[in-house]
């Protein structure tokens, strides 16, 4: 299959790329694992593709003091296997290893995954749970966007036309911080029925702070605020985790489709939230 016609431009610098994107009908092409299928099936068409894969040095992972900085072109596969990511923010590698299949992960990038902002993409909830900061660059300069402001709606982010996501910054895992990424999916090429990113700060038996973010069960990735509030400051128990699951499932807004009915998705979500809280709690050093 051929995508609709476009002009192809592969700049060598980010300056050239943002310049090219001032064209109304231009679109960034990264790993192409979301964009090319859309173009091939003619759900979208653009006059110009700006392939940013030839810009050197956009695929880094740097650990500095308290933060990890990730270049947008770091592939999902590289984040799965990168030793620094595994060590300093293992939630990212745990989620990466569950995205699509190894071949798609070899091409797909973290920048593309968050910028695409499919409600079923796995990196958006991870970024929310970690309070990531995004740096966007355009002709008029750079700005920083918090994860909570970044994911606006289905396939819609806070990036303006002409902006390129230039860097992602996440804090390194703190002592006593437990994490878990869990998702339910059917086939390897399928998107999830529901997915949960969970980060807990644990002290003794108490959950001091909770960040639980969800994918696939709403029009965009979002924090399960009520579920987080329900467990924060409390002593862990399995029933507490289950209650949080019930709350998240009640608040979610899943749609019935070929992956399952609305009711099935709510139940799956409730279980995933419960299980991910338990896992994160144990990884945070909590005892059962």
């Amino acid at each position: 299959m051929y995508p609709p016609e476009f002009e192809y431009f592969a700049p060598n610098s980010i300056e050239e790329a943002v310049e090219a994107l001032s064209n109304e009908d231009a679109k960034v092409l990264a790993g192409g694992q979301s964009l090319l299928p859309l173009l091939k099936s003619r759900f979208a068409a653009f006059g110009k593709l700006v392939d940013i894969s030839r810009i050197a040095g956009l695929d880094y992972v740097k650990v500095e003091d308290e933060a990890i900085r990730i270049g947008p072109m770091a592939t999902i596969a590289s984040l799965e296997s990168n030793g620094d990511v595994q060590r300093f923010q293992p939630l990212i590698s745990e989620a990466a290893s569950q995205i699509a299949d190894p071949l798609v992960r070899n091409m797909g990038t973290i920048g593309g995954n968050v910028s695409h902002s499919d409600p079923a993409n796995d990196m958006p909830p991870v970024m929310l749970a970690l309070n990531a900061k995004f740096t966007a660059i355009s002709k008029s300069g750079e700005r920083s966007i918090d994860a909570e402001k970044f994911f606006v709606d289905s396939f819609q982010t806070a990036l303006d036309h002409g902006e390129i996501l230039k860097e992602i910054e996440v804090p390194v895992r703190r002592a006593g911080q437990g994490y878990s990424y869990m998702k339910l999916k059917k086939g390897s090429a399928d998107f999830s029925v529901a997915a949960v990113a969970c980060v807990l700060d644990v002290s003794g038996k108490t959950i001091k702070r909770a960040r639980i973010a969800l994918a696939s069960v709403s029009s965009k990735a979002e924090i399960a605020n009520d579920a987080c509030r329900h467990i924060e400051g409390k002593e862990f128990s399995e029933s507490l985790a289950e209650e949080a699951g019930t709350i998240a499932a009640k608040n979610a807004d899943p749609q019935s489709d070929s992956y399952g009915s609305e009711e099935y998705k709510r139940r799956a979500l409730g279980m995933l939230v419960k299980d991910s809280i338990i896992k994160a709690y144990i990884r945070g050093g909590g005892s059962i």
Partner: protein
Amino acid sequence: MKKITVKMEVNGKEVEREIDPRMLLATFVRDELKLTGTHIGCDTTNCGACTLLLDGKAVKSCTVLAASASGKKVITIEGISKDGTMHPIQKAFVEKHGLQCGFCTPGMIMTSYWLLGKGKKLSREEIRKYLSGNLCRCTGYQGIVDSVEYAAELMESEKAREKARNR
């Protein structure tokens, strides 16, 4: 639409073509280079029949622009045998019944080629995980996993033999 020039190394040979920028890499190797071993099954990034190596990594070539591959190294199924001798992975697929109709096989073998090139020892479970982007509608996968396991052994003993020869 304006044509563009792409240049890349395919199976060790430099190639250069003028193409429509929207041509996908799978179509490029099949139609432009007549390397029809790379199959197009789904054409929607699901089946992995179109798998080849791009700069050493296995990717689905129906979902990569030929333009994006310009300047890079490509290895297709035609590039892994040497002087008419099958690669150990190919031999293993024959011996362990890793194929029936054979449509998925080039993709299965290219993913395995990438995977076994890492030189890690793999469990059956890991092999299955790595092959999760390659679909087969005939074999039920058992024979494919057997083949990859056996291929790893063949490659291991080939390496040992080579070492002994060089000593």
